């Protein structure tokens, strides 16, 4: 049973007057797919950063409130401790690629979690198969196209397999055929009990979504 609880969240960046969240509360559980909508600059990426504690741990601002995953308050945990519970796929693949080859990239997170090599192998093979990118396994990440890099970063969060997935524009720069594949993966993850937050401009995934956070509407009321 996975749960994510946002309690009384208030946040604004330093040096601005504008509050992005004021006393905002939200609850998500097993199998929820939540879209985060809003115009450019309304705070979508900010919200994802708050959910995984990047704000206020790394990026500072006026922050108040509590985020808990599976009843554990994230305030007392370090980012690496938070990673197995909730992790973030950033929009820009360049920020998330560290190793020469794709396979090493995908092995990184499970290696950090001390998962045994056989299981790591399995996770990698499964992630590559699900995204239909088996042929990229031994290639250099530097030689991949933008779309392929995005898929590899998505695969690397699949091998981490946190309880809550935060996906920032996962469909940007991806071809139609692959979007379909990603939609299926998201649904599969939800069915297996994971919680997924998606920032998505393109409204690709409206059908399976059961919760929405619309930041334009929230901001209007502030």
């Amino acid at each position, binding site marked *: 049973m996975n749960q994510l609880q946002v309690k009384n969240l208030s946040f604004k960046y330093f040096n601005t007057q504008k509050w992005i969240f004021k006393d905002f509360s939200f609850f998500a559980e097993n199998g929820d797919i939540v879209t985060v909508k809003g115009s*450019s600059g309304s705070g979508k990426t900010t919200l994802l950063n708050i959910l995984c504690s990047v704000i206020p741990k790394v990026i500072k601002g006026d922050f108040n409130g509590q985020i808990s995953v599976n009843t554990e308050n994230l305030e007392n945990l370090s980012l690496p401790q938070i990673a197995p519970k909730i992790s973030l796929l950033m929009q820009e693949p360049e920020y998330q690629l560290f190793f020469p080859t794709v396979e090493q990239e995908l092995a990184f997170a499970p290696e950090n979690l001390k998962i045994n090599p056989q299981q790591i192998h399995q996770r990698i093979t499964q992630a590559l198969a699900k995204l239909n990118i088996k042929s990229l396994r031994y290639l250099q990440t530097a030689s991949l196209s933008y*779309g392929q890099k995005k898929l590899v970063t998505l695969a690397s969060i699949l091998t981490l397999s946190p309880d809550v997935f935060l996906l920032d*524009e996962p469909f*940007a*720069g991806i071809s139609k055929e692959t979007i379909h594949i990603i939609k299926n993966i998201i649904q599969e993850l939800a069915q297996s009990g994971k919680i997924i937050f998606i920032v998505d*401009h393109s409204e690709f995934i409206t059908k399976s979504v059961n919760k929405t956070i619309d930041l334009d509407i929230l901001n209007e009321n502030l």
Partner: protein
Amino acid sequence: MKIYNIQNLSFSYDEKCLIFENINLQLDTNKITLLNGINGSGKTTFCRLLSGLEKKYKGRISLGYRELSKLSSAEISDKIVYLKQESFANIIAATPSEDIAIWKHKFQNKISHEFEKEQLEALKEYNLEQFKDQPFWEMSGGQIKRVGLAGLLLNMDKYWILDEPVTGLENALIDILINILQKRKTEGKGALIISHRFEKFEQIVDNWLKIKDKKIIDIK
């Protein structure tokens, strides 16, 4: 009039893997062409070939009436402008206003007072006036993308090659681009657009192309 006349074009980055094989194609100056294809099929490579960044191709590509591989970058950029897919790749300077200014001064000339107005207008079109002096590394991906699009507005009289111009942009901004493209069409200026989101461009596209099996075919 054909802006590009491509004959028997074949191309590979190394000797091993052929990306295009014997392409024959013409692009109209005043029409909008949309090109699609799966990830890695060669869409960006095609743009690089057409913009003169890759010169080691087999066959002929004529831009206007001259062979592309024989033209200088100045001559090519007089006729076409290529907006790359990755937002950072289109940026040279540290802030939007500095970057847009480079289109005009090219590090050689002085900027006139009238140009500052033109510069501001371009940034305004994409709601960027408030960011004009903000460094790029503090901007979001979508904002940087918009700066690239704003730069296009200083090149209205050229043929545009746009590689995924609207990914990550919300509908209101996409509509702005489409209106601009439509207006240009009435003035005889066309574009080659690469986009997975082709439903957005349906209203204005004249030709539909797809890359399949190292060839470019007409669809629809």
